[in-house]
Each structure stands twice: as structure tokens, then as C-alpha cells.
């Protein structure tokens, strides 16, 4: 039983390492500090722009910050929130970000 539990946990990680080759996110695949994502979130609810404090309260991420992982992780949080908890109070989000200091990219929610 113990051996099976350990083997399942280890095999799950092997699967996630392989899976990470096909998706932009990097969950449970051991990619610590492999990407530097500098990002800025502009969030509007009912036409009003949220303050930095409100953005942090909404997504539990700073409005301007650096995430040491894939930008997809920040996008997942924003998208996940808007598709669940934020459904009754939808926001328009513009995320400007740079990966490893390269050119700025823009991601929007809802997608246009």
C-alpha cells in the first residue's frame, strides 16, 4: 500500500514533466525559477479601474509584479477567478507582461 502510494506520486510527476512539454503552464513538473514574468494588471469592473489593493484582494497577486514562473500561471488565476468567483461581478482585464525581459505582450480577459 505504502509502496503503491509512493509509486503513484512519483509516476504522477513523471507524467506532469512530459505533459509540461505540450502546454504553457508548469505545474508539478519541477520548473522552479525557470521563467521571469514581469506583469502589470489593469482591471476594470463596471467601467471602474480597480486599485492595487483591490486587484490583490481579487486575484491574490500584486497588480504589478514578477512571477518566477510561466505567465500562464497568472493568466490561469485571472481566468479561473473570472470564470468562477467573479462571474457575478465580471471584470475586463488587460495583462501586459514581459517574459525574461523580452518584448511586451498583452493578454486580455475576456478574450477578444
Amino acid at each position, binding site marked *: 500500500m505504502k509502496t503503491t502510494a*509512493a509509486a503513484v506520486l512519483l509516476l504522477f510527476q513523471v507524467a506532469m514533466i512530459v505533459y509540461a512539454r505540450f502546454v504553457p503552464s508548469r505545474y508539478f513538473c519541477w520548473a522552479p525559477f525557470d521563467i*521571469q514574468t514581469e506583469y502589470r494588471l489593469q482591471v476594470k469592473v463596471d467601467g471602474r479601474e480597480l486599485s492595487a489593493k483591490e486587484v490583490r484582494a481579487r486575484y491574490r497577486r500584486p497588480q504589478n509584479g514578477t512571477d518566477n514562473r510561466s505567465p500562464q500561471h497568472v493568466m490561469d488565476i485571472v481566468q479561473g477567478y473570472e470564470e468562477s468567483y467573479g462571474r457575478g461581478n465580471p471584470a475586463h482585464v488587460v495583462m501586459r507582461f514581459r517574459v525574461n525581459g523580452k518584448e511586451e505582450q498583452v493578454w486580455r480577459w475576456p478574450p477578444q
Partner: protein
Amino acid sequence: MAAAITGPSWNPLRCGGTMLPVNLLVMAKAIAIALLLTNHVALLPDPFLPFIPGLDLLPPVLFQRTLQVVFVASAFALLFNRSVRLSAFVLGMTIIVSVLASKAYYGNNKTFCGFILFLTGLYEPARGPWMIRLQLVLVYFGAGSNKLLDPDWRSGVFFQNWAVNRLHQPLFLAISSYLPALVLAKAISWFTIATELGLSVVFLVRRLYPLGIWGNLVLHSSMLFFTGSTFTMFFYAMTASMLAFASWPTSPMLVIFDGDCGFCALTKGWVERLDLEHLLEWRPYQSGVGSRYGISDADAAKRLYLINGDRIYSGFRAFKMMVLCNPVSYLVTYTVLAAPGPGDSRFRNIVVAILLVLFSPLFQPAGDALYALVARNRRSLVANSNCSIE
């Protein structure tokens, strides 16, 4: 004869007589100490965008408080040697559940701590710590392969941006100013990739474990010095996990010392006070015990000897082994390292640097010379130096 190791003690510095081997318990305790001292309990989340759907339907405050109580209780139970496998398992599970419950909490360092403690809880004596060792293999393989397949790592772009724009690392800036663009960043990137992938192989081969342990310590200490960050729990947990690769003595080790020397007797007294597992059996060379191991009285008069199974250590190396085989060394070290908290700490960096140098094979000649100097003058170091074997 040394006292036999008895049942679990309430003394947190003791690690013998439990359901875990001493090295694994020291590893788990070192992680628990770092978790407690860095106040990790405050980071444990309420459910927020969980990886497992439905976890956020649980009452958030109750969920978080329960996790916090179980986390602290299991960490202290582990430290005080209470049901150590179960305690490690439960402590690991609280972290794993926290990771699964919140994408905002998710992090590699937390996941690693959770998995290592969870696997420690699943330890079976008949099978050894294979699962913990494979965990390390996977971590290094995942990290190394991800970097290798990332163009920004291969070109040095990631490292250049990190060191220059994020860390403003003065040493990197100084050296790279003498070199063509990206050369230093590229060199460090490829060194990191090679080290991580190399470690994933080294940890599969038993006779290469010492190389792997040193590779791990140098890699993670370098990251600590370079960034000033422990990456929350990563530095503590990655270095502590090396204990799963250490070969730990299973029976008392024999120490052959000069019984006619006050300084030696004084040293013996200090070491014995810290030898809570009674792992050292001290015998004066004047008893003739050395001849059983091919050690002449003339050699034993010059330096101390340590016998561990079929291995014989002497002088500075013997002292290093006594320190390395004592759980107290690790528990005190991790307490000292984690005490400054999660932020940058010059004090922590200095302690790590001193320990690395002292235990490095490169320091061996200097250590031997220092030992020889003390040994030559040992009779004049302690006033009233009396014969202790009268």
C-alpha cells in the same frame, strides 16, 4: 560499552529509537524546524482556485484554521519524536492539501517539502528510502530538462535578465562587463543545466552519492549567495534531503584517543555531552585497542582515530565524521540558518559559507595542519593536564 538506543525520547535533539532511521528523522526535523521558524503556518491558505474542484466549497476559515492547527501539531510531534512516521506524513499532507487547495499558494518549494515529508511518512525499513531518492532524481531531471528545452536558458537570456534587471547582482555585473554580451549568462545557464541533469543521474548510482551530495550543496549554496534568497523553503528542504543519501552508522563508532592528556579528556567530555545517541565509544590508545585495527601506539599518540565499521578516520577527518554523524549538528545548524526568517540574511550566507569551506575536501590539508598544530601542543593547552587513565 555504549548505552543501547532506547525508545523515543521527548528530547527534540534525540533522533534514535524511533520508527525512522536517524538520518531520515534528522532530515524531516530539519525541514520542520525551517517551516516553523520561517512562520510558514501563516502562509497556509484558504481554498482559492483549487487544483481539485470542490475544495473551495469547504468553509474557508475552518479549512485554513484546521490546516494550521494540524500543521503546527504534526511539526511539534515530529520534533518531539512522537509517532514520527505519522507526524511526517501528516505534516507533508497539510502542505500538499494547501498546494492543491490554492493556485495562489502553489509553489515548487512548498510542493517539494510536502512530497518529501509525505514520502518520509511512507518509509518502510525493508525497502529503504528509495522513494525519497527517486523524488530528488525527478526534481533535478524536471528542472534540468525544462531549462535545456527553453531557448532563453540555452541562450543565456533568462539569466542575463534575472541577474541584471531583477537582482542587480554586483559580482555578475562586474565580471560580465569584461566579457562579450551574454557570455557569462550563457556559461552559468549551461553550468546549471549540466549540474541539474548530472545530479539526476548521479543520484541513481549509489557509489556516486557523495558526489551528488556535494553537487547539491554547492548548487543550492551558490544560489543562496547569488540571490540572497532561500526561495522560501527550497534551500532548506533541498539541502536537508541529502540526508536520505547519507550512510549513517548503525552501531557505535570507536574513538581511540590519548588517555594521558588533559586536553583530550576535556574534548572527550564536550563531545560526549553532545553525543545524545551514544554513538561514540571512547577508548584510550594506552589500552592497546588500536592494535586490533592496525594502529600503532606511536600513530595513536599523534592523532585521534575513529573506527566506523571497516572504515578508519584519523585527525581532522575523524573530528569531521563525529560532527557529521551527530544529529545535534544538523538540528542546531538548521535552527541557526532558519532563525533570521525568510528574507535576505548576510549572517545566514556567512554561516553557510563557513560550513561549506570547513567540510569541503579542499579544506582537508588546512584542517590537517591545524589539527597537527593543536595535537603537538595539546599538553600545554590545558593547565593541570592530568593523566586520565590512572
